């Protein structure tokens, strides 16, 4: 009975979104107050119904109701309760329900916080958001309904994919979706502005905090996914240019460009049509990412649902939403004039280059991700694009971008004077170069050409980002959240670059074949397999290795890699043994049984790798701090 309540609530949510779209868009067009007044209640109704649907799905998972097909396929009575809840979004149908709920939750927040906006404009924003949620509710109901019954009921479930039984991955989809969906708000603001044919600086001030928060969520979501691939898949790295990783990275790059371009539009009223285009692109790439993952168009380690009907549905939806927005753009953007000049070395120029480079980087990633599809469509056979392509084409625009940021954060609007900051910029550059030289020539040997460049740029950016807040603090000036957030995010980017440089330059890795009692050499490290034993978990049994790692004869770490055999899914999973230390990770993953008591062991020592993810979290933190700046609060924005 309870599953049917969820099903019914989903239908009601669909109807409410229909009302929201209809009265929002047409009410604003007809300038009818009574129609516009219907929009907010429709949003509330949609939010309540969508929440009820999600709550019902959580309840049937917690209750182990295996008469619901989706529960039977993705859960098991032996599964711990926390993972039963995470299993709600462990597969296609539930992921969509969650996606739609987060969208509706954002819409609800927009409705609640937009009372100071002109009524017609707010109605248009909510109408566009309603159209997007309408598409998702319809997609869920007609192609991917999680509430369908299984008759007869299964005695027990098939269990959650063991890969997904992990805390970071349980949190990865909600964060990622919150980011994707958050860009829908910027998208809706852009569409509403184009429908009105008017875009002023208030518009940018309204859009900016929403976009920054969405961007922060997306950063966390990507970092969690990357961290998970590192320790759970046993891949032992932080990024693999996998199509699905790229699908989340492209909106991030364009979103990063968008938050910078919004700054220009807010402060100077410039780049209007460009900002609109970026707002459309950031959300379009989010939808495209969902499409690529969900339609089975791209074959990847992540792709779990391959269904052509679903593919056609999302494609049609993409055409309506993105195609509609881009057509609107072609029609209305020429009307929006930016009338103001700026000098070549003013902040506007730096941000223009920032935008160009970020969009070029996103374009390069898009080209590499789509190339296999295009080759396939033209009948050129299978093509696989790996890091040989992505690494260089991505570094080409991003390395200059880092240098530009280190200088650009000190530039001022309109006027091209760096003034007294010139000294601070130079000083931090000199320190960066010195640190790089010391590291390359002294502490760590075996560098490539990019190693000193990476260290120098990273350290330079870190120091340069902190100059302004430290200076203001010393002079007793007030520090706005905007300034602090920006400094943290840019310093974190510098930290990110330093840690990636260290990982890429100084990782030691080798695949060893070890029997109990044997030792293998990995660079200056020794891995000794001390013991192998069997252990049992709630829904699996595992072979557990005990590995001692020595550096130059001194014991530096004890690892417990596992190879788990999940009973219900009959899947063997690698649980890497990782000793996280302050400056490095010591890593081991158990591989195959090579016979005669020997096992293959993937051994790696990676310096500073945890700082890659820490930096991503700090960037997100900077974004959240900046988005809560006083000037965005409703009372002062009105």
């Amino acid at each position, binding site marked *: 009975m309870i599953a049917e309540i969820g099903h019914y609530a989903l239908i009601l949510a669909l109807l409410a979104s229909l009302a929201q779209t209809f009265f929002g868009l047409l009410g604003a067009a007809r300038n009818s107050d009574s129609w516009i007044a219907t929009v907010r209640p429709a949003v509330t109704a949609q939010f309540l119904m969508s929440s009820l649907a999600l709550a019902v799905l959580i309840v049937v998972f917690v209750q182990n109701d295996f008469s619901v097909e989706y529960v039977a396929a993705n859960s098991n009575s032996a599964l711990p309760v926390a993972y039963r809840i995470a299993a709600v979004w462990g597969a296609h149908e539930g992921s969509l329900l969650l996606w739609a709920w987060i969208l509706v939750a954002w819409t609800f927040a927009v409705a609640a916080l937009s009372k100071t906006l002109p009524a017609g404009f707010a109605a248009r924003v909510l109408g566009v958001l309603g159209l997007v949620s309408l598409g998702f509710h319809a997609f869920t109901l007609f192609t991917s309904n999680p509430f369908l019954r299984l008759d007869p009921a299964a005695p027990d479930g098939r269990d959650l994919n063991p890969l997904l039984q992990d805390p970071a991955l349980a949190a990865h989809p909600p964060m990622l979706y919150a980011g994707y969906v958050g860009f829908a708000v910027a998208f809706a603001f852009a569409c509403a502005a184009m429908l009105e044919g008017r875009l002023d600086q208030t518009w940018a001030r309204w859009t900016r905090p929403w976009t920054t928060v969405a961007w922060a969520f997306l950063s966390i979501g990507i970092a969690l996914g990357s961290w998970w691939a590192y320790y759970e898949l046993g891949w032992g790295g932080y990024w693999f240019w996998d199509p699905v990783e790229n699908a989340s990275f492209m909106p991030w790059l364009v979103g990063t460009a968008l938050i910078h371009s919004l700054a220009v539009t807010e402060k100077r009223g410039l780049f209007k*049509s460009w900002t609109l285009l970026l707002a459309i692109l950031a959300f379009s790439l989010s939808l495209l990412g969902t499409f690529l993952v969900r339609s089975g168009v791209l*074959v990847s380690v992540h792709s779990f649902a391959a269904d*052509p009907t679903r593919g056609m549905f999302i494609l049609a939806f993409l055409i309506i939403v*993105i195609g509609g927005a881009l057509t609107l753009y072609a029609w209305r953007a020429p009307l929006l004039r930016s009338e103001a000049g700026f000098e070549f070395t003013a902040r506007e120029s730096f941000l223009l280059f920032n935008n160009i480079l970020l969009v070029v980087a996103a374009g390069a990633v898009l080209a590499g991700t*789509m190339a296999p*599809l295009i080759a396939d*469509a033209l009948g050129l056979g299978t093509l696989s694009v790996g890091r040989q392509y992505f690494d260089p084409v991505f570094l080409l625009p991003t390395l200059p971008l880092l240098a530009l940021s280190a200088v650009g954060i000190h530039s001022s609007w309109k006027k091209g004077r760096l003034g007294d900051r010139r000294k601070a910029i130079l000083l931090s550059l000199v320190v960066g170069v010195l640190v790089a030289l010391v590291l390359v020539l002294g502490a760590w040997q075996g560098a490539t050409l990019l190693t000193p460049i990476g260290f120098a740029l990273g350290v330079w950016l870190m120091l340069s980002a902190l100059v302004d807040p430290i200076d203001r603090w010393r002079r007793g000036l007030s520090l706005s959240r905007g300034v602090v957030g920006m400094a943290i995010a840019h310093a974190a980017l510098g930290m990110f670059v330093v840690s990636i440089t260290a990982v890429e330059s100084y990782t030691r890795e080798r695949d060893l074949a070890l029997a109990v009692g044997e030792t293998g050499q990995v660079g200056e490290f020794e891995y000794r397999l001390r013991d192998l034993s069997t252990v049992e978990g709630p829904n699996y049994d595992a072979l557990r290795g005990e590995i001692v790692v020595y550096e130059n004869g001194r014991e530096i770490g004890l690892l417990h890699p596992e190879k788990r055999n999940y009973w219900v899914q009959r899947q063997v999973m690698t649980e890497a043994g990782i000793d996280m230390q302050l400056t490095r990770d010591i890593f081991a993953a158990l591989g195959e049984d090579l016979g005669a008591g020997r096992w293959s062991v993937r051994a790696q020592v990676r310096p500073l790798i945890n700082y890659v993810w820490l930096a991503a979290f700090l960037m997100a933190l900077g974004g959240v701090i900046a988005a809560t700046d006083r000037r965005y609060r409703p009372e002062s924005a009105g």
Partner: protein
Amino acid sequence: MTRFLLPAGAFALLVTVLFVGVQRAPEKTVIPSALIGKPAPVFTLPVLGSDQQFAADSMRGRWYIINVWGTWCAECRNEHETLLEIAGSRVLPVIGLNWKDDDKAALEWLDQLGNPYDVVAVDREGRVAIDWGVYGAPETFLVDASGTVVYRHVGPLNPEIWSRKFLDRLPQSAGGGGS
């Protein structure tokens, strides 16, 4: 003004590529098997519910299908009806490979749902399935009279897949042989 049309134009191109991609997506779910065109792996396994052994060699000279299943696999239940129809049509022998399963559960399953198999070989450890490159249950392989693997289907069978992917590959003479 045309520069404002560029994004829409680029999007139209992208849609075209995606459209072709979606059209082709179903083909990609057919995981190509390295075994196709190669001799089927040789194995000897105990027969379910008896103390006899089944040797794959004994099928030489006849076309047959080998279906990988287990009672723990829900999709196997979905394709069972089709398997019973295939067995009923007596076009060719149906060999079952009971994968990583429990003998008692497997016998109960066949008792309840009907037995479409001419023989069920028991692969409790999953060693033989590895030789066949089995990716997950259910999977079905078509093997010709010379013992060469002709086709592999991943996922549940249905009457449409059976007639389009399997029957169309059979030579006229293979039909009607029965067992």
